């Protein structure tokens, strides 16, 4: 190793690393603060400061956040709502992904007169501010008897998620050579056979991207959750917000932070495990592929 010299180049490099590390610190700080705060007791929170390490770490806040903190009028912690979110997310992700795969397949390889227009019209759904559909959707859910139910929320997430899933699959399938489809057709393969035997085996990456995207979107949703759920059927984001805004007997910041981490854990875990695909999903609609 050569000894370090203060050349212009080296100072420049050092500066770049310094800036990058400084921002890494800024991005990580809130997570650090949340985590350390969640391990302190309320005395320590009042006497210490944000960056101080917990002197006497305790899981009190985590236990309370999970099973006995008050979210509005009932005090069962976040657990029931965590499971609500699970019950909403799984069916909604699976259904919207499958529908999107079929739609994308048709829009990419079985174009018909007007299919491009349909795609454009559907794409628009990725951009509308959902405020314009909130009320009529509430009416429709009421008419279907699904107001304030988990099933109703699944339905809403499927309906407004399909625009994205279709976009993902369509853009991916456009890249698969049409000659493959033609050759298979000549061999007598039909619509479903071609999908099943040619497209599905090639689709693993786009399934992962779509599933991760939908999972994060739906798990993190608040707007639909707060409008279409009733007492007992709220998803975790709504429960977290209620928990933070319920102050029975003094504010417990440690419980708030433990609850926030619990609400964030599933999507964070997905990000850590499959970050590459997560990024691809984020940029899929943005960077022209």
């Amino acid at each position, binding site marked *: 190793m050569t000894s370090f010299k203060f050349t212009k180049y080296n100072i420049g490099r050092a500066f*770049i690393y310094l*800036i*990058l590390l400084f*921002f*890494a610190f800024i*991005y990580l700080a*809130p997570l650090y*603060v*949340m985590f350390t*705060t969640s391990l302190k007791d309320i005395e320590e929170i009042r006497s210490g*400061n*944000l*960056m101080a390490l917990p002197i006497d770490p305790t899981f009190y806040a985590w236990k309370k956040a999970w099973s006995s903190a008050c979210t509005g009028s009932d005090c069962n912690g976040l657990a029931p709502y965590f499971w609500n979110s699970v019950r909403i997310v799984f069916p909604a992700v699976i259904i919207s992904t499958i*529908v999107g795969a079929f*739609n994308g397949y*048709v829009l990419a390889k*079985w174009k*018909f007169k007007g*299919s491009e227009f*349909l795609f454009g*019209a559907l794409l*628009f*759904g990725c*951009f*509308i*501010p959902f*405020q*314009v*559909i*909130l*009320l*009529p959707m509430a*009416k*429709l859910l009421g008419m279907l008897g699904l107001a304030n139910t988990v099933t109703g929320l699944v339905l809403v997430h499927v309906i407004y998620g*399909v625009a994205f899933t279709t976009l993902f699959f369509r853009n991916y399938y456009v890249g698969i050579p049409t000659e493959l489809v033609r050759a298979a057709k000549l061999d007598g393969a*039909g*619509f*479903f056979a071609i999908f099943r035997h040619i497209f599905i085996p090639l689709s693993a990456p786009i399934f992962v991207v779509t599933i991760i995207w939908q999972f994060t979107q739906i798990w*993190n949703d*608040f707007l639909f959750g707060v*409008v279409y759920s009733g007492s007992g059927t709220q998803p975790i*984001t709504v429960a*977290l*917000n209620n928990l*933070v805004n319920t102050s029975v007997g003094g504010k417990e*910041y440690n419980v*708030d932070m433990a*609850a*926030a*981490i619990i*609400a*964030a854990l599933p*999507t*964070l875990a997905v*990000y850590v495990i499959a970050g590459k695909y*997560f*990024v691809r999903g*984020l940029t899929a609609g*943005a*960077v022209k592929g």
Partner: protein
Amino acid sequence: MLNFLEKNLPKIVLAPTTIVMVICMYGFIVWTGLLSLTKSRMMPQWDFVGLDQYRRLFANPRWDVAVDNLFIFLILFIVIALVLGLLLAIFLDQKIRAEGAIRTIYLYPMAISFIVTGTAWKWILNPGLGIEKLMNDWGFVGFEFRWLVEQDMAIYTIVIAAVWQSSGFVMALFLAGLRGVDENLTKAAKIDGASTFRLYWHIVLPLMRPVFFSAIVILTHIAIKSFDLVQALTGGGPGYASDLPANFMYTFTFNRAQIGLGASSAMIMLFGVLAILIPYLYSELREKNHD
């Protein structure tokens, strides 16, 4: 019959989505649009009163505050996130060791919900126990930071939290763009003796035009839809000082039983999105036709 099915299979597969789209997107937009022309309060009713609700909306000081806030938020959020994202991307593009790890750190906030982000920053910015106390403990006695409870400053806390959450994403967009720049181009410029600054300013940045475009559209979209972040961080307060249009719409529709007024505010939000989206799609399509 079977032949007919076989032939129309693609259309049949697309039919359910099409029907749902026509009803639940376009039908619902029309429904909300019509509702905004009635004097509905608690329940939808269909006595049309023309643009009365829009007049009431624009005369409502709370809506004024929400729209002003949106502009403050939009401009600051977009400019800061773009500058920060671009700088970090350029720095990260200098053959940095542990690039992957640093990128992961910059981007993880994007995986978290705005409610969690809001909850975390509400605690960090807590007047008294948050950053203020930290700075005091670190020796900056008398340091004050009470934006969260100040009428004029609360909206800026939303900017801080939103930039924290989204700038890593902008960085990822730019990094992908930078990686797409032809290396020969930059090499040639270096041989010609261009400084790094001039290289980026005159050659690389102009090539990033489409990325700027996409990033601005996405950030605008995030900003206009921002509802949860405000709800979790400031609750729209103090008073209604940090309301955004989405929060206005929610409050008047669901808490105040003024659904006609709520519908008119939703329609204005839609028009706002369209005003940005249509030129974007237009230029995208024109570019594609040129290819």
